[in-house]
């Protein structure tokens, strides 16, 4: 019934995202779309670090790559990652949004427009408000919205701005996010 999970995070999200990846089975039935703020001039190393204990392959997609279940797609450094009609990745070099490229808002908005109510959006720890508007779009178009419990976040700005803008479906700890995702069967 769901078609994708999209996760956004910034400062303090790396450990959370690795715990999530490491806890999901190789046959996880959905694609995971990851938009995490990162240093724009460091092209390599991030995918490798996320992959160490992940059963799910983590990929930095090329433009127009087909999105497939059981894979994690990490927005590449210095590009925005859009979800395009036809279930493909489309990259963009348009200017930074919320001082960020990749911008979580842009990935979330475009994913919401393609997957609508069949999308699960998750905002993790982070130090700016990027992602808050994108999560609102997911909510407006009928998708499921989850925010990491700000009390657990290393930096609360991103989760708190998301909670201010949207009445989200769930405020979860990392463990609860993992349990929620593990229960998804398609």
């Amino acid at each position, binding site marked *: 019934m769901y078609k994708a999970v999209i996760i956004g995070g910034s400062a303090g999200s790396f450990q959370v995202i690795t715990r999530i990846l490491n806890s999901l089975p190789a046959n996880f039935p959905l694609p995971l779309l990851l938009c995490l703020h990162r240093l724009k001039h460091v092209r390599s190393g991030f995918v490798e670090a996320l992959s160490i204990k992940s059963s799910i392959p983590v990929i930095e997609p090329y*433009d*127009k790559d087909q999105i497939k279940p059981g894979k994690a797609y990490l927005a590449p450094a210095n590009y925005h990652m859009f979800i395009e009609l036809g279930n493909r990745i489309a990259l*963009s070099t348009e200017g930074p949004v919320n001082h960020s490229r990749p911008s979580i808002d842009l990935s979330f908005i475009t994913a919401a427009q393609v997957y609508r109510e069949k999308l699960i959006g998750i905002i993790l720890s982070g130090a700016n408000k990027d992602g808050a508007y994108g999560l609102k779009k997911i909510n407006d178009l009928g998708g499921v919205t989850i925010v990491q419990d700000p009390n657990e976040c290393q930096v609360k700005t991103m989760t708190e701005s998301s909670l201010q803008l949207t009445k989200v479906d769930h405020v979860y700890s990392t463990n609860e996010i993992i349990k929620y995702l593990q229960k998804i069967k398609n």
Partner: protein
Amino acid sequence: MLRYEIGIVETRNVIKAILDIYGYDFRDYALTSFKRRLEDAITTYALKDADGLIFRLQNNKGFFDHLLKDINPETTEMFRDPSLWRSLREEIFPEIVRTTSKPKIWVGALDSGEELYSLCIVLKEIDLLDKFNIFSSYISEETVKKIKGGKIYPKQHEANDANYQRSNGAKRYSDYFPQGIGTVMSTINVDLIAGVTFVKQDSVFSNPPSGVKLTLFRNQIIFFNQILQDKVLNKIQDALIPGGYLVLGIKESLENTNANNNFTVTNDAEKIYKKKSG
């Protein structure tokens, strides 16, 4: 970041109006980013909605050039991906001048001059600027005016400078600004591009230069759908001489296109491809 949004049907209506009135074809541009560009234009020009944009297009011919400028993807950085520029500086350009007389370089990407100035600075520093014929594509008259004016926004310097240093630039970035760099708009040394030939393009690159030895086409085909990617790569292939180089953005790959069989990979990390001979 609340913003004005339009739907897919409205986007297609604007695309149809542009085609009908001006003959520029955006039907095979990647929809999501093109829709965003139109939304930005509607906001920038304080138009009410997509119909307002179409009305303006129908009634103000001068407006279309502004729109072409806005539809151009901004690359926003000089020396983007410094390791590519190192490779061009240290390997590719010296090799080209050893093997080809008066080689032609085509800057195909329709940005606002970042690629062109980066290229000319690198060639100047290795003393090869006068050995190449450089052609630069543009789609909007306003953009080419901007490029020739050499104005750089203050907020761009930090990224440009950091990239320049990582690209093994031989001087200081600020050396290319005769009046220096400050907190206001500064002017880059426009003599760098004095020998460049500007070539007007339409939206689907119907009219590329010929006999090209190397084309910089980075982060351009990401704005096309796969149909147009294949068409434009065909044009590029025809423009290149056998053994000529195609440089794409680091996240653009020929593997998702029909052109894959006609090129070999020279540098996979930097996406430098070479057209096969014969």
